[in-house]
């Protein structure tokens, strides 16, 4: 019961902040209407938004790793963009596309979703499918350097998995 109240409150605050960002004014009437709407939506949907306790979501260690994830992610994006732009602009287009299997150690749903999204967001790699037991991703790679699962895991997933396995335990 106590847990439900906490997650209800967090959902309400997030939704209200989104409302304030979208209307872009601090008028008292707008704030009141936003509070009513956010309270209604939070009551309807907090069960789907947050599962499990609230305490463990605010551990400083996880937020520290999440902050350290940002520059590593931007660096990976820059490298991937440079390589894909080189491949596109090269007159003979030296691409070697193929679908490889990438095993992962992550088990939680959020962790696998985050890894698949990060892999898709970096150009050059695109997650096509997830195997049923959730232990590996099938990734389309524009420049296949290795087919063996250990090599693909080290080259594609490790830069993100290193942080994600600490953030989403």
């Amino acid at each position, binding site marked *: 019961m106590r847990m439900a109240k906490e997650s209800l409150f967090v959902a309400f605050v997030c939704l209200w902040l*989104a409302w304030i*960002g*979208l209307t*872009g*004014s601090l008028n008292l009437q707008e704030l009141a209407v936003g509070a009513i709407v956010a309270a209604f939506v939070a009551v309807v949907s907090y069960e789907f938004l947050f599962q499990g306790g609230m305490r463990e979501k605010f551990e400083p260690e996880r937020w520290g790793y999440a902050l350290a994830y940002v520059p590593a992610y931007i660096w990976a*994006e820059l490298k991937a*963009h440079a390589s*894909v*732009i080189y491949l*596109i*602009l090269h007159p003979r*287009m030296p*691409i*070697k*596309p*193929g*679908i*490889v*299997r990438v095993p992962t150690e992550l088990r939680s749903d959020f962790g696998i979703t985050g890894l*698949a*999204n*990060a892999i*898709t*967001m*970096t*150009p*050059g790699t*695109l*997650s*096509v*499918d997830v*195997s049923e037991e959730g232990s590996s991703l*099938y990734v*389309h790679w*524009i420049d*296949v350097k290795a*087919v063996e699962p250990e090599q693909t895991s080290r080259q594609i997933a490790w830069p993100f998995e290193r942080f994600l396995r600490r953030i989403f335990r």
Partner: protein
Amino acid sequence: MIEIIAYILLGIGAACALIGAMGIVRLPDVYNRIHAQTVVVVGGVIVMLLGASVLEGLSSYTLKALIIALFLFLTNPVGSHAIARAAHKSGVKLWRRSVADKLKEEKP
């Protein structure tokens, strides 16, 4: 100074958008074109939105532009993944010179 940073970001975004669009035309099959589309969206449009919000300074305009950038950032990989999965399930073949298709071998 702030304006120069904003114009540099806008220039990078425009260049990435143009190169990505060329990639969408040049690359040989659906899966490769999705890589080029990611270059258009992430390197092009999101960087341009960041440049526009740096140019505008702190206001409600900036906040809304950043919300649009965050929304594109969260939804683009979901859409790309859905299209790639649908293409593979409905039987779109890989390019004839692809080196491997583990998905077809291991999950027919």
